[in-house]
């Protein structure tokens, strides 16, 4: 039984981490696409239109991989986590059912129109399609985060005699404070991902001196949206999230910070290695009082350490949890700096100066890091929730399917590894091909190619 549980967890972790690489770009990019299309329409600037068409192609490829990798997620509730589904289905099933009925149908109807309906619909209707599609993807995000928030901070349920939950208040379920905070935090993170991807591709074009007018627009939008989103990820959304963890999951907070002893004026450790056998943090560099401030708003508040909790309530993988949180927070901080600097350079008109080419390289190479930070953030949330499947109510060990043994799970895990590897390769090849091709210049823009011609020739 313990064996099977381990592989159930590995398979879910693998399939969800892989899946979420795609929707995080989908949701963020959907918003940027709306911005590009609106700018094209209202500023009557064909360059924005070209750029929107280019990013729509990337969006399309990314969207379909997100769709097909999303299917297994819902099914695994039943196949791998049957007892969890039995107990909680009457509650979280509402959010999952609504995601299908309200978000997926809307998205599926619109994505084809976004990809191929450009000429058929005209610019105004096409902008509306993009906006509604964006709404669909963002709704989908809320429904699924509501399901997760129930696992983090269960609300609006009553346990029946049969051992199954029943929903007591629909509104309470949908307005779970955890869901609101996690949603805001997560959606801002997805805008960060999309902004970094747009910046990275634009930086590449500038470095290669290709598609310069488009690249400049891409940098303008990507850097601006990126800075706003990076700041919002940290404050207020990340900050609110941290305060909720402190309030509802103090044991997770202690583990995230590698804090073994309770006490006032709790410090944040910027770096250090959690040493579980010795119950201490090795080689720490600390900021005194900072954790107290983040969690409770004053520098002297008492913050519980792991010693305040029985060992069987400690998160099961404190080391990974600790690093996941620190990677997320560390990267998030650096993102603000990078985007701040980028906007400063762009504002001063220095971005394309030879002296600042290294910055463009930095921007180009930065695109994987929001993916890493987002994944680390979700690992923080999910590992912090352990050993609970529904925090404080149902242990992870009690949630797996009854009769599915380790051999079956390993079989399907290998299947996913193989399929997802091949699909990942295809995805990368297709994306690189589109990036290499760049935006196809519309008839309008072709009339005024003077600004780019010399560079284009020089680098052809």
């Amino acid at each position: 039984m313990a064996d099977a549980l381990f592989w159930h967890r590995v398979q879910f972790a693998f399939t969800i981490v892989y899946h979420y690489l795609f929707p995080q770009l989908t949701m963020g990019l959907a918003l940027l696409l709306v911005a590009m299309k609106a700018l094209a329409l209202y500023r009557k600037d064909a360059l924005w239109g070209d750029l929107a068409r280019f990013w729509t192609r990337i969006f399309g490829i990314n969207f379909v991989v997100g769709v097909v990798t999303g299917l297994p997620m819902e099914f695994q509730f039943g196949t791998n986590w049957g007892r969890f589904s039995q107990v909680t289905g009457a509650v979280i099933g509402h959010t999952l059912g609504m995601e299908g009925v309200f978000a997926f149908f809307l998205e599926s109807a619109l994505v084809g129109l976004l990809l191929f309906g450009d000429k058929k619909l005209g610019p105004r209707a096409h902008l509306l399609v993009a906006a509604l599609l964006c709404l669909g993807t963002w709704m989908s995000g809320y429904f699924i985060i509501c399901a997760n928030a129930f696992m983090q901070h269960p609300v609006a349920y009553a346990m029946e005699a049969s051992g199954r939950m029943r929903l007591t208040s629909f509104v309470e379920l949908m307005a779970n404070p955890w869901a609101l905070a996690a949603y805001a935090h997560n959606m801002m993170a997805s805008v960060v991902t999309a902004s970094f991807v747009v910046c990275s591709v634009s930086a590449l074009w500038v470095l290669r001196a290709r598609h310069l007018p488009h690249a400049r627009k891409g940098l303008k939008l990507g850097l601006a949206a990126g800075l706003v989103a990076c700041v919002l990820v940290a404050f207020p959304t990340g900050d609110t999230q941290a305060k909720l963890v402190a309030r509802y999951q103090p044991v997770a907070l202690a583990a995230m910070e590698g804090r073994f002893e309770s006490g006032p004026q709790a410090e944040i450790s910027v770096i250090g290695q959690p040493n579980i056998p010795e119950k201490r943090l090795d080689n720490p560099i600390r900021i005194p009082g900072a954790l107290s401030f983040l969690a409770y708003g004053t520098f002297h508040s008492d913050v519980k350490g792991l010693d305040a909790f029985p060992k069987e309530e400690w998160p099961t993988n404190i080391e990974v949890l600790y690093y996941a949180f620190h990677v997320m927070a560390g990267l998030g901080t650096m993102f603000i700096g990078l985007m701040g600097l980028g906007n400063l350079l762009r504002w001063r008109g220095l971005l394309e100066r030879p002296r600042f080419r290294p910055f463009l390289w930095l921007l180009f190479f930065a695109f994987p890091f929001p993916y890493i930070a987002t994944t680390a953030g979700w690992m923080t949330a999910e590992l912090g929730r352990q050993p609970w499947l529904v925090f404080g109510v149902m242990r992870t060990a009690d949630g797996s399917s009854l009769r599915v043994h380790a051999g079956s799970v390993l079989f399907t895990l290998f299947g996913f590894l193989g399929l997802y590897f091949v699909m990942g390769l295809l995805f990368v090849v297709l994306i690189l091909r589109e990036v290499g091709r760049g935006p196809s210049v519309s008839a309008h823009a072709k009339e005024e190619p003077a600004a780019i011609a010399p560079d284009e020739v020089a680098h052809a």
Partner: protein
Amino acid sequence: MPEVWFFLVAFMVAMYFVLDGFDLGAAMVRPFVARTDEERARVFAAIGPYWDGNEVWLVAAGGTSLCVFPAAFASVFGGLYIPLFMVLWGLLVRGISIEFRHLSHDALWVSFWDFTFVVSGVVLSLLFGVAVGNLLRGFPLGDDGAFELDLFSGSRPAVLDLYTVLVGVSVTLAFALQGAAFLAWKTDGDLGERAARLRKWLTVAVAVAFVVTFFATHRVRPELGAAFLARPVGWLFVAASLVGIGLAFRSARTLLGFVGSSLVILGSAVSLAVAAFPVLVFAAARPDVSIVATGESSGLRIALSWWVLGMALVLGYYVTVFRIHRGKTPRVPEEAQAPVVGDGTT
């Protein structure tokens, strides 16, 4: 309230079969009806605007049954662990086949996705039919509501046994008919002509297969027949099925033929649901542990309110998408279909 939900879930699954049935069917009949590069590309173009939305019916049915019948959801999904993942992998391959094919015009690229498209169509149709067969035959449920079932086995009932494969073949034929009827309606020229001819043959094949399946089902689970006879409303759906057979056989290349084949699927699925009601999961040997439709009413009522609103929107989306793409699927221009050697795009 659970009674209502029993039929709403059955309706969603039936709608999935009707709608994704034509995508999967188009994949299966494609080798028989599309002979030129242009025709092959046109088959993809014909289902292109719809397949994703059609697939959502399955996701929505899954999410909704988790909500309204969590015990049945957990039992069936856990018990059919391996075949369900095969379905998921098949859907994954099918999805990227449709969406990746047109991204390059390289001959190898196109022929690869043509092949995976057809194979995934056949495998998925068979598996969905086998799943229906399994649900009708029942599972070796224990007191805990869970079960384990071999994928195949020489003598004992298994996921794939004589009966379930028979149902699998019947459903595969029904999906193929659905695909042919869709193409006969939505395409013209030689392609539409061949699809219409095939539709006629497939209608006969489906009629025969359904009759054989009917008698086999009566042997495997005789109480279904008795229950059905006690509920005369079921005849309405049987009649719908029969009318569908007639329409699919006789109609010209119009919407009516597609309505006919859709009625065949919808009518049969709903009459099966009428016969099975209120059992969601049959226990093969011990009727006392069969999982029936029950549930606490206030939660089910909440689900009904969002479901009705959602379905009204879905109807709107379908009307919009079918209207935008009304008429026959246009010919695919040369530059968007021809598999040329080397990458034709650069």
